[in-house]
């Protein structure tokens, strides 16, 4: 009886407290809530609608059904830009991870100099992507660029990286490796978390450096490698600034290069230069689907190869 009355007396107060807590919470998250509705939810819906229309900003959108989507199949530049983007991503993501991992492993062995070299490797990441695009044109220049000069020292005739369609993407991949800094930092942190006892017992069992790396290091940091693979794939599909800077001038398309026409660049041209906003919206949704497929595939693969600590499988 006593307990029952106390429950009755407590309940309304607690409910009021809970309601007050909810109101306070909603006030705190209200900036995001508003921003989400205005700049994410509505744009997503409206972009879906626009993709079914013909819209040039000046005139009202005209409904065209799935025409934009079917038109993409007949647009050779869609296939071209998608292929360019795929090639870039498929080349750059594994290389990015291999280079970052190699440098992180080296850093781990640098003892007191780790901090210094980490700074050196990270600094390029601070370079604005526009400046990276400029540097690409200068350093990879077929005639005077330092890359080809150095290759020349070894008797190799370097390709025309910035004009030869076959070499534009490899060149962009290489320069993108210059900015692996943050991946190095992430991998270094993961490497430092690998328990040293594992290496000690492996050493006692006579495992050499290569065996330790492939049997202990890589499995132990596989979740981090997976994270980097997913993130960099998503970034890779959206490559824009470096390539746009180097190959696409505003109103000056004389040195634009089909080999560097990446998907988001073409989307930008369609949307904001030709004002085909309906078509560009449809393009954006195709990109979303492609990225989604790749991410889901990566997660599916990761289930079989990635080790998570505490996972007892």
């Amino acid at each position, binding site marked *: 009886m006593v307990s029952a009355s106390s429950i009755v007396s407590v309940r309304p107060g607690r409910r009021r407290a809970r309601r007050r807590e*909810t109101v*306070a*919470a909603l006030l*705190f*998250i209200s*900036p*995001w809530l508003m*921003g*989400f509705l205005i*700049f*994410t939810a509505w*744009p997503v819906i*409206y*972009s879906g609608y*626009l993709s079914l229309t013909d819209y040039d900003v000046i005139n009202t959108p005209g409904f065209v059904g799935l025409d934009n989507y079917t038109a993409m199949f007949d647009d050779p530049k869609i296939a071209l830009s998608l292929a360019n983007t795929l090639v870039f991503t498929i080349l750059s993501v594994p290389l990015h991870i291999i280079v970052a991992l190699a440098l992180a492993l*080296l*850093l781990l062995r640098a003892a007191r100099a780790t901090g210094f070299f980490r700074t*050196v490797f990270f*600094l*390029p990441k*601070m370079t*604005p992507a*526009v*400046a990276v695009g*400029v540097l690409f*044109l*200068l*350093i990879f*220049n077929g005639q*005077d660029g*330092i890359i080809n*000069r150095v290759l020349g020292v070894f008797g190799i005739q370097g390709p025309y990286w910035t004009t030869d369609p076959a070499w534009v993407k490899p060149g962009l991949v290489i320069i993108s490796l*210059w900015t692996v800094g*943050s991946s190095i*930092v*992430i*991998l*270094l*942190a993961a490497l430092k978390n690998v328990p040293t006892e594992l290496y*000690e017992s492996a050493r006692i069992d006579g495992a050499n450096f290569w065996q330790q790396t492939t049997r202990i290091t890589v499995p132990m940091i596989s979740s981090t490698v997976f*994270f*980097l693979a997913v*993130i960099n794939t*998503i970034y890779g599909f*959206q490559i*824009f600034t470096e390539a746009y*800077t180097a190959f696409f*001038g505003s109103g*000056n398309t*004389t*040195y634009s290069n089909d080999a560097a026409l990446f998907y988001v660049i073409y989307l*930008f041209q369609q949307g*904001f230069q030709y004002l085909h*906003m309906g078509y*560009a919206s449809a393009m*954006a*949704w195709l990109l*979303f689907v492609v*990225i989604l497929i790749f*991410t889901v595939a990566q997660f599916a693969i990761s289930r079989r190869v990635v080790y998570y600590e505490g996972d007892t499988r």
Partner: protein
Amino acid sequence: VTTTTSRTSHTELAPEVSDGQTAAPRTRHRTPLRRRIRRVLTYVALAAFALVFTYPFLWLVSASFKPRGEVFDNLLIPRTFTVENYLNIWQEAPIGVWLVNSVIVTALAAVSVTVSSALVAWGFAYFRFRGRGLLFALVIGSMMLPGAVTMIPTFLIWNGLGATGTLTPLWAQNLFGSAFYIFLLRQFFLALPRELFEAAKIDGAGNWRIYTRIALPLCRPALAVTLLFEIQAAWTDLLRPLIYLRDSATFTIPRGLKSLLDQFGFGGEWHWEVVVTASVITTVPMIILFFIGQKQFVDGIATTGSKG
């Protein structure tokens, strides 16, 4: 010298020896040399990579001190050293205006996103309310959405408000917080001991007071990370200035650099010394930023990796 090396190698070997392995005598004899070679090789490799990574910077800075005809000579020490480029560039282009625009956008973007993201992060971290899990899933989910999907409707919003051609669209969205920073700051808030806030609550502190007087000051390192990350993001952005800015007087410095490349680069007058000098001016503030906040950058990125 030999005594010290043998002593250090001996102490390094100590654990293995104490483990009582039979192979210990042989390794004791051979490992120091092999280890020394490996250490030398490590440093040689690191130095080689360090050269590759710093070379583009050195090339760029050095080229900016060369007269027009020597920009491409690939010498690290200019044959003719000149500061002319840095004196002339202000006449070639409104670099000063672009720098001011960039500073305005960057400051507003960084401060607004830090203030708002911290508020929202605290809302998700501290309070318990129905729908919290779902709403936070939306925060995370919105990070997965490619920017291209929202790019056009967002442009239409700013266009409808008559804000295209102004700096506003480059930063004002940050007033509503940003998913990535909300996630980052929430992680930080969650790591704070909850008893701290319960104690303050018992002492009669209200929600706002708990947030501003206790939570925020404790969160300073994460706030610094947010601020620095966003300064970098806002300063280096090219896509949005390309979408929203038409008039050269409104350009930010990366957009200005792009216009200089178009005007003076391959498609234009081949005045590469202008492009090179503007590239240095665009990049140097980021280098300075890194040296100011090196620890925050490194810690922030390392946690991003582990929390992801």
